[in-house]
């Protein structure tokens, strides 16, 4: 399986290295570390919908990031708890996912949703790192993640909250899904 690990953390965590090593045994893993990438913020220009369909106007590491998403079988987004939600790095990355859908709108379960651009987008999972394990923040974060996924109609693998310690690798249900 081709797996992309979208590391959107602001700090370094040994457990992320462990996750990469663990998954690499049976899968081909790419792991863009967003804080080291040059990705411009979405400017809301809509060129990716109306001028160069599907393609972001930014020719920076956005290209590498989106290529690693659409060609993967699964993507795991990892973030810390930042003020009760995902980090700005993860949010910036999600904003740049907008070229992956079509501008046309339909109705799904009573709500407006965009049309698909890709026949199949990867399955998606998330890992939320919070040393205090704040359940309310985690619940809200995962709710947002699952709503964001409705846009891409991707299959939701699952979610985990960990403290970020190396030993947390044994607690991850998300990882078990891949073995």
């Amino acid at each position: 399986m081709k797996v992309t690990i979208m590391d959107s953390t602001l700090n370094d965590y040994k457990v992320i290295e462990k996750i990469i090593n663990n998954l690499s045994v049976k899968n081909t893993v790419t792991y863009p570390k967003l804080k080291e990438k040059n990705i411009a913020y979405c400017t809301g220009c809509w060129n990716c919908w109306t001028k160069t369909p599907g393609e972001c106007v930014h020719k920076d590491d956005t290209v590498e990031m989106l290529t690693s998403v659409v060609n993967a079988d699964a993507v795991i987004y990892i973030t810390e708890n930042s003020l009760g939600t995902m980090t700005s790095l993860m949010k910036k990355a999600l904003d740049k996912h907008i070229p992956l859908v079509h501008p046309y709108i339909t109705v799904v379960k009573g709500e407006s949703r965009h049309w698909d651009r890709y026949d199949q987008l990867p399955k998606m999972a998330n890992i939320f790192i919070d040393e205090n394990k704040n359940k309310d923040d985690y619940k809200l974060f995962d709710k947002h993640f699952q709503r964001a996924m409705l846009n891409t109609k991707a299959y939701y693998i699952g979610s985990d909250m960990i403290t970020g310690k190396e030993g947390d690798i044994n607690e991850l249900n998300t990882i078990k899904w891949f073995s």
Partner: protein
Amino acid sequence: MNLTLLNGSPRGDGSNSKVMLKWLIEGYGKEGEIYNINAVSKHEKAIDACLSADIIYLIVPLYYDSMPGQVMKFFETLSEHKEQLEGKTIGFFIHSGFPEGQQSYTLKEILENIAKKFNFNVLTTVIRGGSEPTRLMPESWQRKNKKAVMDIGRCLKEGQDISLSSHNTLIKPVKLSAITQIAMKFGASNIYWRHELKKNGALNKSFDKPYLN
């Protein structure tokens, strides 16, 4: 009362948020400076304005079911000054391109949760759907919405919470009506996008998948 207005739109001066902030200032009745936070380079100035404010008011478009990344980055930097900000009042105005108000409920929760981390007092969060044509339509076509946004300005000036009538006017429709749903399934909301694609000579490649290997 010292009011700081934040424009959370990535489009900055050319945004629907900016149009609505101007309406709000009209209702406020005084000159008010709007701080764009669409680039990290503008954050320091906006943070200084927040530090000297009694009330911070943010208008923000819904991006991927939350706030734009730039706005989150702004809050992360702002949190370095948490102690100086404690007890100030903050208000949020969320608007979405999608017509139904309920699309913005999750962002309302996220923003109010952030406010809690800062120990801000929070005003009633305002939600408005179907905002995309605001900057393109003549004002005379959107009198009702303008009046409701101006009233937010009045409330801020008088040190009150946002009026229920403004909140209730702007949030409608909360859900898509049965008729709207049928119209949308038949592509009523695609007319604009189709027109734009055609204008740019991109209609025949509108389903391109450029990142696929």
